[in-house]
């Protein structure tokens, strides 16, 4: 699981590449939480390189997004592909964490 984090105009841009199965979540959850939560970040997360996600990956995003919302931060996910997008739909996650088709739409949503 690869994770790149950069900041531009006050927005954290996080790119994830690989598999968000249990081993993948174990590999990034602590770093991702530390990058986002203490600073109450506004963060957009590129999921276009994520080829697999299970319930533990969903749980990670819910936990971080909730911690952010309590601190007036925000997380927006974007560009999930194929079966990964279907997992988000099955879990109705888009109702509570914004999921957008591309980076521009995610940026607009995270600044709203």
């Amino acid at each position, binding site marked *: 699981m690869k994770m790149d984090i950069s900041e531009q105009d006050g927005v954290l841009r996080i790119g994830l590449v690989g598999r968000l199965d249990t081993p993948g979540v174990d590999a990034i959850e602590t770093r991702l939480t530390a990058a986002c939560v203490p600073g109450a970040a506004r963060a957009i997360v590129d999921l276009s390189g994520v080829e697999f996600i299970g*319930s533990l990956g969903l749980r990670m995003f819910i936990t971080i997004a909730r911690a952010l919302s309590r601190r007036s931060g925000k997380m927006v996910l974007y560009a999930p592909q194929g079966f990964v997008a279907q997992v988000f739909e099955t879990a109705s996650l888009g109702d509570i964490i914004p999921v957008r088709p591309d980076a521009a739409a995610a940026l607009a949503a995270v600044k709203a």
Partner: protein
Amino acid sequence: MGSAAPPESPRRFELTLPATRPGFALGFDELRRGLDTLDLEPRARFSAELVFEEVVANVLRHGTRPDTDTRVSVEVQLADGALRLTFLDDGLPFDPRGRPDPEPPSDLEHAETGGRGLMLIRSVSSSMEYQRTPEGQNRLTVLVRGQQRGGPG
């Protein structure tokens, strides 16, 4: 010779992993190598990995005993276009059938963090059978939707 196509020969593999985080990672690699040999269409492939992820994660979270090393055996069988995954573990009894899905979340604050694993299994499977064996093992058999690449619709 009749016109019916010859029956597809069943193909299978099995693996065993310790119910630990390192065991999970190694077992998942082994599962994926095994699935490579079955030439599945992409949806069935993803579904098989999703079922494995959720079932094994459940055993790790809820099924292990503190005083023994729990192991999970997985048999994957492709026969007549159907993909069947059978999980056998010697952990605590756990029948996942009939567990309710979490309520659809109304907002982030009230969203349940867990409970979505079984919902995801149901979404990609056509049947799920559970048995507590006389030997004291959990046996869970999941039939995955989808089939072999180029197989019948």
